[in-house]
C-alpha cells in the first residue's frame, strides 16, 4: 500500500489550492478526484466572481478569507497566467427603499475594510454603463472576474508538476483509521496517509460519515445560468447586481461578463434534494432572460448559446435563513482529519487564503520543510486567436499544427488542442480540452470542432473511440464502430 503524508479528497478549487500550497513542501501528497478532471463539481459551475467582501458578515470566516484571498489574486494571476479582470461591480437600486440596502452593504464593506466603495447616482452610472438604468448604485471597484475552471486547473496542474499525485476517476469508498494513519479504499486501489483533508464539496458529509457521525447536514442549493453570445459583450462593462432578495442568503440573479467576453445571467437559487441534480429548467431559463431584460431592456432573446447549473453546498436550511459560515476545522473526534465544509460563495476568492490556513493548521501535526526547487507552470496562454501575425507565423514555422484551425468560432488550432490533451493531470475528456483551450465554447457549440478533436484524440493520443468521454467517467461519446475493424 502506498504511503502519503497528506491525502486530499476532492480536486475542486479548495482541494487544488491546498494541493498547490502543500506542493511547496517536501511532502508526499495525493489527491483523489472522482470526476474525470479537476474542477468537476461546484468549482466549474458558478459565476467566476472574485468577491470584494461586502456580502460577508463581518467577523465571519467568509469575510476573513474573502478579504485575504482577494488580495492574493493579482499576484497569483501574474504567476500562473490565468485571466483576471477587475471589472468592478455595481449593486443597483431601483428606488429609495432599495438604497437602504446599498447603505447596509457599504457599511458591511467598510467594516470588512473593502476599499473604494461609493454610492453613485443613476445619471453617473449611465455614463459608465449606458445600457443599464437604475436610481442609484453601489460601485465596488475591488470585485473581479476569472474563469473558475481555468483558476482551479492552474492550481492543480502546478501542484502536479511539483509532484503532487492526482488520481482522477478515483472515488473514495471507505476510510478506516488506525493509530497513525488513515486507510483509504478507492476504486483505484488502497492508500495510507497520515493526514486527511476533506475537500469533497457536496460529498463532504459522505466522507465524514465514513469515520464518524456527522454533526451537520448539507443542503444542496442549485443555481441555473444562461450564457449569452459574445456579440453582446458590449452591453455591460462591469458586473451588475440588483439589490439582493431578502430571502435565504444568496446574491440574486445578476449579469456577469466573463473573461472570454460572454455574459452570464444568473444564478437562480433553489434548494434541491439530490446534490447531483444539475438540471436546467424551462421556467428558470425564461426567468433569467426576463430578469436580465429588466436590467438591460435591449437584451435580445436570441442571444443564448448555452445554459448550465451548479449546486452549492450549504450548511443551513432555508428555514434557518440559508446562511451559515464556513467550517474549516480539524475534527475533534478524528484527529488529523481536516474538514472544509460549506464552502460556497465567496469560495473561489477565499480558496487561496483557505489553503494557506490549512497548511498552518497541519503544521503542528507534520514537519513542513520547504522545497528548495519549485516550478511555476504558466497556464497555456499561447492562444492563436490573441497572437500577432508575427507570432503566429513564427509558431507555424516551428510546428505547422499551429496553422490548422480546428475550432472556427474561437480560432483554436490543432497545436493548442494537443497541448490541452497533454496536460500534467492526464485529463483527456472533451471538456478537458474545452476548459484548457476553448475549443467547443463558441456559438456552434462543437458543431465543427468535435470531429477534429475526436480525430486528434484517436490519432495523436491513441485513445480508443469507445473510451472518449464528454466530461465524466461514464459520459462516453460513442457506442462503437459503424464497421468493425479487424482488431475489434
Amino acid at each position, binding site marked *: 500500500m502506498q504511503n502519503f503524508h497528506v491525502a486530499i479528497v476532492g480536486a475542486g478549487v479548495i482541494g487544488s489550492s491546498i494541493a498547490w500550497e502543500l506542493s511547496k513542501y517536501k511532502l508526499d501528497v495525493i489527491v483523489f478526484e472522482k470526476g474525470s478532471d479537476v474542477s468537476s463539481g461546484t468549482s466549474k459551475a458558478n459565476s467566476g466572481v472574485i468577491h470584494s467582501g461586502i456580502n460577508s458578515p463581518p467577523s465571519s470566516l467568509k469575510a476573513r478569507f474573502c478579504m485575504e484571498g482577494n488580495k492574493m489574486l493579482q499576484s497569483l494571476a501574474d504567476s500562473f497566467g490565468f485571466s483576471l479582470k477587475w471589472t468592478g461591480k455595481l449593486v443597483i437600486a431601483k428606488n429609495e427603499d432599495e438604497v437602504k440596502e446599498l447603505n447596509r452593504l457599504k457599511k458591511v464593506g467598510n467594516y470588512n475594510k473593502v476599499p473604494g466603495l461609493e454610492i453613485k447616482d443613476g445619471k453617473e452610472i449611465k455614463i459608465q454603463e449606458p445600457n443599464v438604468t437604475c436610481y442609484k448604485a453601489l460601485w465596488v471597484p475591488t470585485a473581479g472576474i476569472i474563469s473558475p475552471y481555468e483558476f482551479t486547473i492552474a492550481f492543480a496542474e502546478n501542484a502536479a508538476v511539483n509532484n503532487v499525485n492526482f488520481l482522477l476517476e478515483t472515488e473514495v469508498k471507505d476510510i478506516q483509521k488506525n493509530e497513525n494513519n488513515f486507510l483509504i479504499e478507492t476504486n483505484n486501489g488502497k492508500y495510507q496517509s497520515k493526514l486527511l483533508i476533506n475537500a469533497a464539496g457536496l460529498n463532504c458529509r459522505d466522507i465524514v460519515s465514513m469515520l464518524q457521525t456527522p454533526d451537520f447536514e448539507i443542503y444542496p442549493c442549485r443555481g441555473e445560468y444562461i450564457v449569452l453570445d459574445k456579440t453582446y459583450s458590449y452591453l455591460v462593462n462591469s458586473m451588475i447586481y440588483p439589490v439582493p432578495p431578502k430571502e435565504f442568503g444568496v446574491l440574486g440573479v445578476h449579469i456577469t461578463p466573463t473573461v472570454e467576453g460572454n455574459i452570464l445571467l444568473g444564478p437562480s437559487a433553489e434548494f434541491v434534494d439530490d446534490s*447531483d441534480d*444539475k*438540471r*436546467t*429548467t*424551462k421556467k428558470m*431559463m*425564461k426567468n433569467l432572460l426576463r430578469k436580465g431584460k429588466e436590467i438591460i431592456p435591449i437584451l435580445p432573446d*436570441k442571444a*443564448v*448559446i*448555452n*445554459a*448550465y447549473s451548479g449546486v452549492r453546498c450549504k450548511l443551513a436550511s432555508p428555514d434557518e435563513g440559508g446562511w451559515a459560515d464556513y467550517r474549516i476545522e480539524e475534527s475533534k473526534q478524528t484527529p488529523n482529519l481536516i474538514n472544509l465544509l460549506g464552502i460556497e460563495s465567496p469560495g473561489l476568492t477565499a480558496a487561496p487564503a483557505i489553503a494557506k490556513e490549512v497548511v498552518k493548521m497541519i503544521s503542528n501535526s507534520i514537519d513542513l520543510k520547504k522545497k528548495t526547487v519549485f516550478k511555476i507552470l504558466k497556464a497555456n496562454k499561447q492562444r492563436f486567436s490573441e497572437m*500577432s*501575425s*508575427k507570432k*503566429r*507565423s*513564427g509558431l*507555424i*514555422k516551428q510546428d*505547422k*499544427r499551429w*496553422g*490548422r*484551425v480546428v475550432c*472556427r*468560432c474561437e*480560432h483554436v488550432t490543432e497545436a493548442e488542442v494537443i497541448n490541452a490533451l497533454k496536460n500534467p493531470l492526464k485529463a483527456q475528456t472533451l471538456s478537458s480540452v474545452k476548459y484548457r483551450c476553448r475549443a467547443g465554447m463558441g*456559438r*456552434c*457549440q*462543437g*458543431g*465543427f470542432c*468535435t*470531429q477534429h478533436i*475526436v*480525430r486528434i484524440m484517436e490519432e495523436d493520443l491513441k485513445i480508443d*473511440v469507445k473510451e472518449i*468521454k*464528454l*466530461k*465524466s*467517467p*461514464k*459520459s*462516453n*461519446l*460513442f*457506442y*462503437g*464502430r*459503424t*464497421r468493425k*475493424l479487424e482488431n475489434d
Partner: protein
Amino acid sequence: MVEQGSLKMINLDVDVTVIGAGPAGLAAAISARENGAGEVIVLDRNSWLGGILPQCIHDGFGVEEIGTSMTGPEYADMYIKNAEKLGVTFFYETMVLQLFKNHEIIAVNKKGLHKIKAKSIVLAMGCREKTRWDVLIPGERPSGIYTAGVAQGFINLYNIMVGKNVVILGSGDVGLIVARRLRFEGANVKGVIEILPYASGLPRNVVQCLDDYNIPLYLNHTVAYIKGRERLESITIAQVDEKMEIIYGTEKEIKCDTLLLSLGLIPENELSKQVGIEIDTITGGPVVDQFFETTVKGIFACGNCLQVYDTVDILSIGAKQVGKNAAKYAVGETHEKIGFVKVTAGKGIRYVLPQQINKSGKVHFYLRVEQPKKTAVLRVFSGDVELLKKKLPWANPANMIEFDFNVSEKVLKSNKPLEVTIDDQ
C-alpha cells in the same frame, strides 16, 4: 486583431477568391472560370472538398439539375473534376481569419499566414446547425446529444457509431435521412419528434425513411425534458398546442441513449458581419441585389450562407450565376447602377430575395411563405399598383418558391419598394 503588412506572410493576388469549397463554392468557382476570370482560388477549412457532400452518402442530388439522382460524394466529385479541369486552385485546411472591404483576406494553414488580394470575392461558407440552446431544451446535460449533421459525419466519414437507441428531434430532411441510416446500421430508432402538425422534410423522405421502417413520427410534439447524469438515459416528449406550448399531462418518457437534433440551419456569416456586410435578420444571410452582390462592392454571396436551400440543385444554379457575376466584376465589367428599389416581404411572405434591385430587366426571385396554403396567389406591387398576379398550386414554408419578374425602368426609377405578397386568392 491581425495587423496587415507583416513581412512573414505568403502573398497572393488573384481575380476571384471563393470562401468555401462546398457545392456553392465549387459551382461558383467553375462558373467564374467559364466566364472570363483569370486566377480563381477556393479556400476550405477541411482536408477534403465538397463541404457537407462527402457525408451525404444518400442519393437525390442532381435530379432537377442534371436529370439523374446521384449520391452526395458523386455530385461533389463531378464538380471537383470540372473545377480541376478548369484550373481552379484549391487551398485545403485553410481558415479565413479576416476579410477586408478592399477584398483582402488573411487566411492561415499549415504553410503559414496568407495575405490574398482579389478583385472580387464569393462568400460560400455554408451554414451551421441549430443547437439545443437555440431552442432551450431543459433538463440535464449528458453525452449522447448531437446535431444530426455531426452524427451523420461520424457514422459515414469516421466509422464511428454514436449510439444504439435513438430519438430524433425535427423531421427535416437531415433528420429523416439520418433516421434511416441509423436503422440500417442496426440502431433502434424509437421515433422522430416534430413540433409542427406536418413533417418538414420531403414526402419522399417521410415514406422512404420512416414509413418503410415503421419509425413512429410524433407530430405536434416537442422534447420537454432531457434525462441523464452522464450519458443520455431518456427524453420526455409532450404534445404542443397551436401556440407550440407544451400541453401539460401529455408527457411521455422514451428511454434512449442518443438524441439527434435536426432543428434547422443557420447561415454562417461571421466573416460577412466582420466586414460590415448588411445581414437580413430573417434569412440570416447577406442583403443582396439581383447580382447577389452584397452591400460591400465586389463581395458576392451564394449557397446556404446566403439562404438555406431545399435542394443542392437550386443552390448550384444560383451559385453558378454568382460565379459569373463575380468574374465579370473581376474583369471590370460592372453594370451601372441606375436606380435603387427595395424588395419587401409583404403579407404572408417570410422573406424574399434579392432584397434590392438596381438594374432593370428580368430578375429571378426566391421566397418562402409564412404558413402552408392549399391555394395561393402570389402578387407583386409597386406602391399600390399590382404588377404581377400568379396562381400557385400550393405553398409551403418548407418549399422555396422561385419566380421571374421583369423590373421595368419606370419601376426602378420610382423609388417605391416592390412588395411581394401571398394570399389565398
